[in-house]
């Protein structure tokens, strides 16, 4: 592919976009490659994804496929990275290992062009080299690609540091503090996760995202729960909860159905924190559109946290 005919790259606003938005956007911008990001999830996107997807896929993957579908015709290729691992016991969910193949197969009749980069540290491929290779594939010099990666890396680090700093400040807030333990693509999803956060905020709660954390410390802290847990993002979330549970009034573990990682990790967190006295609410999201059950759970959970706090203050007084 020559630089003279640079393609327009379509980026689905789903799954790891919510973790790497700054990296990807800055990288492509630095190379001068035009990108188009799909709109925030709405019902049309969610339903299109559910139609395209297989039965056994998790809700977030279904949503992702809806975003891919919404980009068809708006770009020359779809950007779908393959992210396998970052080292030993730093593995990603297998969905991210197979994602480019899943997208290509689900949309095989559309003859989608998939643009990808492979991160597989245990296989000898780090993120930096992978993204330099991506730039070479797009027809840029190694130097230009390296520069673009550096800019992207710095932007992502700044965004992550800012999010972690904001969370640390939130832990010191006066209001009812709730740690929300969930994958970023669940909490950031405009149709499924965001309304939950919105609801909690409207009721006056301080919602703190568990994955907004200094990642290295969190991975280390996760050993308190399990020395062998191998999933990168689960370790960050579980570790962050281990670091901060004593500062929170309650914890909500929110996952999408069926998430293999959360089905094990969330259950483990509940068991490990059994004696800590922090109330934990587990929420599983499915494609059902009714919010009545969800509201009942959130409202009663907030009632419990409010009453507990009042009782604690009365004991002190």
């Amino acid at each position, binding site marked *: 592919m020559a630089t003279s005919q640079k393609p327009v790259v379509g980026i689905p606003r789903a799954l790891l976009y919510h973790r790497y938005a700054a990296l990807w956007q800055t990288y492509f911008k630095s190379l001068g490659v035009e990108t188009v990001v799909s709109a925030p999830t709405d019902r049309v996107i969610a339903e299109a994804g559910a139609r395209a997807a297989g039965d056994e896929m998790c809700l977030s993957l279904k949503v992702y496929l809806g975003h891919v579908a919404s980009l068809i015709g708006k770009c020359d290729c779809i950007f779908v990275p393959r992210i396998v691992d970052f080292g030993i016991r730093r593995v990603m969910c297998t969905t991210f290992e197979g994602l480019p193949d899943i997208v290509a197969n689900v949309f095989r009749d559309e003859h989608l062009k998939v643009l990808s980069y492979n991160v597989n540290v245990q296989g000898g491929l780090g993120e930096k080299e992978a993204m330099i290779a991506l730039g070479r594939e797009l027809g840029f010099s190694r130097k230009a690609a390296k520069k673009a990666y550096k800019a992207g890396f710095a932007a992502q680090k700044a965004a992550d540091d800012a999010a972690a700093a904001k969370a640390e400040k939130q832990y010191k807030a006066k209001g009812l503090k709730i740690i929300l333990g969930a994958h970023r693509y669940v909490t950031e999803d405009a149709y499924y996760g965001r309304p939950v956060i919105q609801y909690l905020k409207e009721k006056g709660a301080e919602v703190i995202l568990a994955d907004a954390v200094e990642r290295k410390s969190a991975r280390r802290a996760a050993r308190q729960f399990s020395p062998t847990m191998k999933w990168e993002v689960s370790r960050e979330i579980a570790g962050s909860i281990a670091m901060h549970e004593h500062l929170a009034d309650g914890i909500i573990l929110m996952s999408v159905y069926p998430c293999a990682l959360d089905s094990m990790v969330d259950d483990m967190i509940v068991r490990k924190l059994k004696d800590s006295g922090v109330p934990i609410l587990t929420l599983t999201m499915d494609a059902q559109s009714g919010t009545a059950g969800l509201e009942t759970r959130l409202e*009663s*959970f907030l009632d419990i946290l409010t009453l507990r706090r009042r009782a604690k203050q009365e004991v002190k007084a």
Partner: protein
Amino acid sequence: MKKEAYLGVDVGSISTKGVIMDGDKNLLASAYIWTEGDPIGAVKRLIEKLGAQFDRNAWQVVATGTTGSARKLVGAMLGATVVKNEITAHAVGTTAYHPDVRTILEIGGQDSKIILLENGIAIDYAMNTLCAAGTGAFLSSQSRRLGIPVEDMGAVALKSAHPTHIAARCTVFAESDLVHKIQMGHTKEDIVAGLCEAVVGNYLNNVGKGKRIQEPIVFQGGVSKNIGVVKAFERALGAPVIVDENGHLMGAIGAAILAKHHDARKVFDFGIENVAFKTREVICGQCPNRCEIICVYRDGKLIDNWGNRCEKGDITARQAKHA
């Protein structure tokens, strides 16, 4: 001067419950009827029954609380001063009569929950998630299969000395296991007793998973009327299980108490029997989310709406602006 009373209404998927209480937690009136898929009609009948049971010249209902899955709809209908979720309402209601309760087990028609309390305050709870396994609906469908009225199942179960083991993890598996055991020649008594144990096993493995169940334990909800399930709980937990005679009213009682403690006051008019309430579903076309909005009309006038994800779908507000 009339004395102050409080109305509490709990509208569930299967049954509709209501109480009128004085300020000292004494019941002035109570009623329990089937919802029959028509919450509006059920509430009208309920109010009629309640209104006939107490002296309206001596008492005046000054605040109303609603709870249960139809709490919003019924709250709009009755002009409720408090609309609360059923978990909080049950915790408040139960602690009014059992102030030292530590665990509330509840199995209703469609859902089941567990509430843990400390010093009269709910500290933790869990609710069944996506499926209705092991709830009243499961027992009533199996009672039809066995030809034993659901009311008699408890007594039948007590006759069994060797409850049949029935797979408890999932209703679908439990059902196929049950059919198999019938064909193998297990007696009905043993199978019914096994079903009661399956309900308990399912509950403790799902809703009660990881929870520390401490005494005193109160069991309520429709299934608590089944003595077979009560005994199965006592065997599984190794502790006595209390079933309050008013257990089925605890949600309504909690709603009435919450209404009393809340500041809002609004005299309740028993005349709603003659008011026409209608609901209508509207699909909002303002954005791709196409929210399903429920509009509630009182004598043809829109009084409330919900179901919208954003303010664009707030029809009541929109009409108020145009008016």
